[in-house]
């Protein structure tokens, strides 16, 4: 595995209707690495994922993936290059069954996905025929992840998949993400639950009000006064 | 052998754009049927006896696609003996190829589009109103006679109004007149206020509005409420539906307006087929609770008597035979709607409508004064019309 970064963001900026949501975002991701992305609510984490996955276009800066600039590409083109994501608010194909949700992604990405294995990963084995509409919110999030896995990603962007799960379930997800990473898939994981992140990675980036205020180990972050005030609060 | 009943197929519009006129035409046809049946039916020469008539009618809702299937239904399922088309060019248009295909003579009371009559045919006869290519001739002549040269025209974007405007403009051109104001408006136009203002800015001596009935209502109402005044205003429908227009726009808005007066407003006393105008009005009143018939009622009735005459003279009871009979009558007959003159292409060239003006009387009523041509003239035009 080369140590060339698989993903590089350089001076990325984004605003919505006059509100500067991200400014001067710079970071790199090595192949196979898991990066934690944390920050208070509304700090811009989802926006970073939206920019990398192509849901939104950056106003400035560049995004390089696997050696090529991608910020002009459509989202589906980026999926074909190997970028995929889950959504904070689940977005399944609700008129389809669980299985179809995954099949569709596998087919269009041209990836020869092992669907039973994916169903097993996301804990929906036995529910192949269930309509996605009748899954719980958390199950839908898992299905979202399954859909992403079915495209054979090299970089997976995971947006708050642990929200609303109990510790036992969180442990299960952490194990799953580790297994996925072990297949050589790089990951950016957005999460608020520190114990959960701690199981996955030691490197985090902390966003606050659209700027990176910290980059380093999780341990150091929890001692950084700026991070503590912005993110952990008194509970740190 | 002789059929027990002669089936006449027709369509009418129970709703939609053409409902008013279409139902009027249908009533006229029904009126005729009732009368012949009261006399034991229509005399058919081929069988040398009277046979009762039966009208088979469907509602096309003013829709051409519905009309297509229903014409076909009349021809192929009901196997009617004659087809009478629905009112107007739009609902007649789809029947023309069908009639030709099935070799049926299409009796066309009111489909007057010049486009229908381009080539010779045995299967089309416009019987009750003149082809729109000749309809406006008297108006052009009258304006020429009165030396009115500054003319404004507002017309609807449809075949009926458009071809009249074209004919009119072509006639003007011959005498070197170009309209000072010339605008087509959408057929659905119901708001003439602003348009009237623009027209006034061109200071025409005469303003001619060519539209359908609702257009004329809206136009005259807008004119009245705008406070504008033109020395000469012409619209089509007051001459055909005077009562309705008086009710709708008020006598006040109609005064001094010019129109084509149609029977029963003008009278054809000497007819050689069917009733004359007075008889028609009286008879109609008897069967319709005293109501006065309008022009389209007369048109429907007229279609009936011409068909009857064709059946009564054609030696063979065939479509071609009846068409020939209709052609043979051309130029020899005058009916309640005037002289009848059929061209080989099926166009109606007789029955030109005169020009009349609605002149207010002392008691506030409006008198229809025919001002052109001289043969029908009952008074002089008041031109320019007094303001206020």
């Amino acid at each position, binding site marked *: 595995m080369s140590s060339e970064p698989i993903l590089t963001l350089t001076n990325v900026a984004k605003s919505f209707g006059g509100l500067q949501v991200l400014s001067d975002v710079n970071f790199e991701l090595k192949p196979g690495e898991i990066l934690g992305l944390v920050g208070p609510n509304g700090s811009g984490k989802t926006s970073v994922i939206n920019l990398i996955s192509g849901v939104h276009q950056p106003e400035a800066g560049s995004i390089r993936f696997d050696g090529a600039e991608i910020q002009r590409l459509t989202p*589906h083109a980026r*999926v074909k290059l190997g970028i995929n994501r889950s959504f904070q608010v689940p977005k399944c194909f609700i008129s*389809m069954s669980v299985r179809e949700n995954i099949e*569709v992604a596998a087919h269009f990405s041209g990836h020869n996905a092992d669907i039973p294995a994916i169903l097993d990963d996301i804990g929906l084995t036995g529910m192949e025929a269930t309509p996605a509409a009748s899954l719980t919110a958390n199950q839908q999030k898992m299905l979202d992840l399954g859909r992403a896995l079915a495209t054979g990603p090299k970089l997976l962007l995971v947006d708050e998949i642990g929200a609303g799960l109990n510790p036992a379930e969180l442990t299960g997800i952490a194990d799953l993400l580790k297994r996925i990473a072990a297949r050589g898939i790089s990951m950016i994981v957005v999460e608020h639950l520190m114990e959960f992140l701690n199981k996955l990675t030691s490197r985090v980036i902390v966003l606050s009000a659209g700027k990176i205020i910290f980059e380093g180990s999780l341990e150091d972050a929890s001692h950084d006064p700026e991070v503590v005030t912005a993110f952990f609060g008194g509970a740190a | 052998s002789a059929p027990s009943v002669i089936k006449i197929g027709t369509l009418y519009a129970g709703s939609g754009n053409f409902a008013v006129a279409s139902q009027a035409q249908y009533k006229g046809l029904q009126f005729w049927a009732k009368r012949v049946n009261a006399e034991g039916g229509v005399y058919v020469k081929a069988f040398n006896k009277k046979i009762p008539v039966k009208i088979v009618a469907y509602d096309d809702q003013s829709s051409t696609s519905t009309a*297509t299937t*229903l014409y076909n239904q009349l021809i192929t*399922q009901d196997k009617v003996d004659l087809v009478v088309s629905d009112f107007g060019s739009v609902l007649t248009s*789809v029947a023309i190829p069908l009639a030709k295909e099935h070799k049926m003579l299409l009796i066309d009371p009111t489909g007057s589009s010049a486009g229908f009559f381009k080539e010779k045919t045995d299967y089309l006869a416009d019987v009750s109103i003149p082809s729109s290519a000749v309809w406006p001739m008297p108006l052009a002549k009258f304006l020429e006679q009165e030396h009115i040269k500054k003319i404004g025209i507002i017309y609807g974007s449809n075949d009926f109004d458009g071809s009249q405007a074209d004919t009119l403009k072509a006639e003007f051109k011959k005498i070197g007149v170009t309209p000072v104001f010339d605008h087509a408006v959408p057929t659905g136009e119901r708001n003439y206020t602003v348009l009237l203002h623009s027209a006034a800015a061109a200071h025409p001596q005469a303003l001619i509005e060519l539209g359908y009935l609702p257009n004329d209502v809206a136009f005259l109402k807008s004119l009245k409420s705008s406070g504008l005044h033109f020395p000469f205003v012409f619209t089509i429908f007051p001459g055909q539906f005077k009562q309705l227009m008086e009710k709708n726009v008020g006598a006040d808005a109609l005064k001094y307006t010019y129109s084509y007066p149609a029977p029963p407003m003008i009278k054809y006393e000497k007819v050689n087929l069917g009733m004359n105008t007075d008889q028609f009005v009286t008879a109609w009143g008897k069967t319709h609770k005293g109501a006065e018939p309008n022009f389209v009622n007369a048109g429907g009735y007229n279609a009936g008597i011409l068909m009857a005459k064709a059946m009564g003279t054609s030696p063979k009871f065939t479509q071609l035979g009846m068409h020939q009979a209709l052609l043979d009558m051309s130029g020899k007959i005058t009916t309640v709607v005037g002289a009848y003159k059929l061209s080989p292409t099926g166009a109606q060239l007789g029955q030109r409508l005169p020009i009349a003006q609605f002149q207010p009387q002392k008691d506030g009523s409006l008198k229809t004064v025919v001002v052109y041509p001289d043969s029908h003239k009952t008074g002089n035009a008041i031109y320019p019309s007094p303001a206020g």
Partner: protein
Amino acid sequence: MRESWFKRARAGLITAAVLALVFSLAPNVYNNSSLLFMMMTYIVLSQGLNLLYGFTGYLPFGYVGFFGTGAYATALLVMKLHLPIGLAIAAGPIASMIVALVLGPLLRLSGAYFSIANLAASQILFIVIGNPNLQDITGGPYGVKIDEVYNPTASYAAMVVLVVVVTLIATFFRRSRFGQGLKAMADDPVSAEMSAIPVVRMRLLAWLTSAAVAGLAGALYAWNLSVFYPDAVFTLEISVFAIVFALFGGVGTVLGPIIGAGLLYALYNAIGISEPQYFQLIYGVLIVGLVMFLPEGILSLLTRRGINVF
């Protein structure tokens, strides 16, 4: 495992064959061929609309615009350039696809905004084509007349072929990955992009296909009618009927629009012929009643019992 190509298409092939048979033989039993022709036209239009609405969720309120464009393209090529009718008919769908391409940006809109913008677009086409200023090009309000090529038998046969073709296209939409991708886009376009579905391109493809179907239907209609005014091929009634028929049968399926159009159009005529005086009233009451008692369309009678409708 996915079934073979033939297995997936079987239901469609059977449906198409049945339709072809029924409409080829029907004129022998019931020779009001205009009615049968119109019924096929509405089956085609409802199905064409279904291709777009049933699979992408975009309801083209102005679907008649493509129909009218096809009709006019054909009629004008015959009238002005005296093209042979076959060529002129081929131009119908091409013209409507060109219009669809120009209107492509409307697909950026969603829901009601799309429907009504599309309606506006069809009105624009109508007003432009029927405008007296363009009389020399389009015939304007005077309409068109191509009765020299009038051929009810041949145009009827062509419409039977079109019914078959459209049924097969719908089968493809219903049973292929392409159609599944369209449904995914309808559910959630962002997620669809994340499934590597080229959303914009596929939506445009569905749009063009649907437009071409209407254009071809219009071309054949023009041929069958041969004398008509702009109104006859641009009236909104055609859109509304196609939508009502398709929805009534059940969109997103192949059979729904066929059954919906066949049944409601037959009823429409049955009432019109048997009860002309109260035509509109009865038809209205019937439609309201059907919706209230069968709110999910005819096919819901089956789906409610868990039967997967083709």
